[in-house]
């Protein structure tokens, strides 16, 4: 590095930012992701000022003016109007969704809000749970570690999608009641909780491995020698060193959770009406695939673009935050293997 002196003045975060910005592909996909976020945030604007209708408003018998000509939103045979682009002043930009005649574009924007909300919330909850479990497990070792590791291993070896599907449908029919926690059958919290619980091991296992390795470092020993209690050591000393891992996994988990949500919602065990998400929109669209293919393909494309950009951003963050991260992660996994919990990386476990 020729500018070593300049680097010395910069903190690790600003160096990481510079490394990230040098990755052109990642920056392009970050822009795409922000564009998608802006798109879904603009939903009320588009709904009120352009389309003039809400995501659940039905137009079964209404007409729309296309190039000065009145046309049915839904024909008497039940065929919804196709994409109008800007011919109808932005109304029914992508056509109507079904024989209910709801505006597909408005639904796409509001559905994206649900998809992103569920994905981000589930990833956030899973990450917080995973960090706490990973810290407890890796710091205390002994029986705490055995219990937590067994639970994580069991969840890991379950067919999570199938169990998630069962839980999703059971909650969609009956709602949830555990002690004081009560959720209605249509609550968005149902898919969020299901996804977060079943994805915890994906983050908790690598974090546990890292905590195991970190807790042998001198700075931890020094903190203990200074009289720091377990909480101080775990959250004050070890946690800051996990920041880059947490950020990377959080990004990747949003993508993973969104796929999980889309799979559940597509089958009808995720987001329940009146809410809709990109996943439920595909279900509606597939029935009309022959006459209006875009109704199924556009929401699918939105999911793919969002997930793809998050995955690329996540990988680039890993490279930027921790150029030696891969080596360290391998070391953590090796540590895990030596301690008897052999991990086998699951591949295409989610849809």
């Amino acid at each position: 590095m020729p500018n070593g002196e300049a680097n010395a003045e910069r903190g690790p975060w600003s160096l990481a930012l510079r490394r990230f910005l040098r990755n052109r592909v990642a920056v392009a996909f970050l822009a795409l992701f922000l564009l998608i976020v802006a798109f879904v945030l603009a939903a009320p604007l588009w709904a009120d000022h352009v389309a003039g209708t809400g995501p659940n408003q039905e137009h079964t018998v209404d007409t729309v003016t296309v190039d000065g000509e009145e046309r049915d939103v839904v024909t008497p045979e039940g065929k919804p109007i196709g994409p109008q682009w800007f011919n109808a002043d932005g109304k029914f930009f992508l056509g109507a969704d079904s024989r209910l005649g709801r505006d597909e574009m408005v639904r796409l924007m509001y559905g994206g809000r649900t998809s992103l909300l569920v994905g981000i919330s589930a990833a956030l909850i899973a990450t917080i749970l995973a960090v706490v479990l990973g810290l407890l497990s890796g710091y205390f070792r002994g029986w705490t570690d055995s219990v937590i590791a067994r639970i994580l291993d069991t969840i890991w070896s379950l067919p999570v999608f199938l169990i998630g599907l069962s839980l999703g449908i059971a909650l969609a029919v009956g709602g949830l009641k555990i002690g004081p926690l009560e959720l209605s059958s249509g609550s968005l919290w149902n898919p969020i909780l299901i996804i977060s619980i079943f994805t915890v091991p994906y983050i908790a296992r690598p974090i546990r491995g890292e905590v195991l390795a970190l807790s042998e470092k001198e700075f931890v020993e020094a903190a203990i020698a200074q009289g720091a209690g377990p909480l101080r050591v775990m959250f004050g000393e070890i946690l800051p060193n996990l920041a880059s891992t947490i950020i990377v996994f959080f990004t990747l988990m949003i993508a993973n959770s969104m796929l999980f949500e889309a799979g559940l919602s597509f089958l009808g065990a995720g987001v329940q009406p009146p809410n809709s998400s990109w996943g439920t929109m595909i279900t509606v669209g597939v029935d009309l695939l022959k006459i209006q293919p875009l109704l199924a393909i556009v929401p699918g494309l939105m999911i793919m673009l969002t997930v793809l950009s998050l995955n690329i951003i996540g990988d680039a963050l890993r490279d930027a935050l921790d150029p030696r991260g891969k080596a360290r992660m391998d070391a953590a996994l090796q540590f895990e293997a030596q301690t008897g919990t052999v991990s086998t990386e699951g591949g295409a476990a989610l849809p």
Partner: protein
Amino acid sequence: MIRFIVRRLVGMVAVLFAVSVIVFVVFMVLPKQNPAQTLAGKNATPLLVKNIEAEWGFDDSLPEQYLTMMKKVFTGELVQYEPRIPVDDRIIEGIPATFSLTIGAAVIWLFFGLLLGYLSAIRAGGWLDRILTGVSIAGISIPVFLIAPVLLYFLTYKVEIFPNGQYVPFSEDPFEWANHLILPWFTLAILSIGFYSRVVRSNMLDVMNEDYVRTARAKGLSERQVMTRHVLRNSLIPVITLFGLDFGATIAGTAIITEAIYSLDGVGYYAAEAVKKFELPPIMGVALYGAFFVVLVNTLVDIVYAYLDPRVRLGESAS
């Protein structure tokens, strides 16, 4: 080796027990609604609900309820109400379609995954490698609920090359069987082809640096022999583990979605239809049997892996 197998089998039984408890809790304990009402379906008569309540013993303690459920599952008494059909029968009927779909897709993804990975690895860094890398990454990123509608629309509705889903039994007409399954096979395989070609490529590149590869070259084997006999063969061991896990995960995951889109009358389609109608007994059956199958496959894979790679079982017994 025997110690390893015993340990694995004990672990398997523990996981199976955990699965059955989880399914029990999911259906009987968590929902705030009366579970009999949930099992009976949305439009059930009060009489049916009362009968189910008695049949499942919902007045008993939770452990007793759990035993009742397990007894029903293992004796084939799990039924869907309205119309009253044993869940087992429908699941058994669905098995040929589900296995035709998943095994066929697995053959395709293994074949293309290995082929593309092999070609990438022997030309690492070259233009072919770069193109194949791009293709794999694109393949990994396409979810089934996008690829299926796209294939179905363009190859079935727009240009009528392939029939629209449905399952034709192999015994009825082998040609139609394959013809109806081609699109679903590729739908399911594309994601894994991308993933496997990446895995094979990186494994091969790792193995190429091993000492025994240098030895093989030094003793005068041709490049082709070195690549196929030493490099490819040794880089396949991790792929076998991965394959076992993915095969289970596919049956219990993406296959359900694929069957639903293509109306393939398999176990996944049965589950998907039950979800649509809010019928719980079929889902309970599919979840339990499916989970048992997946856990069984994973255990077998672990044992095969340990057999192929002694380091695994030695590492286990040493700790």
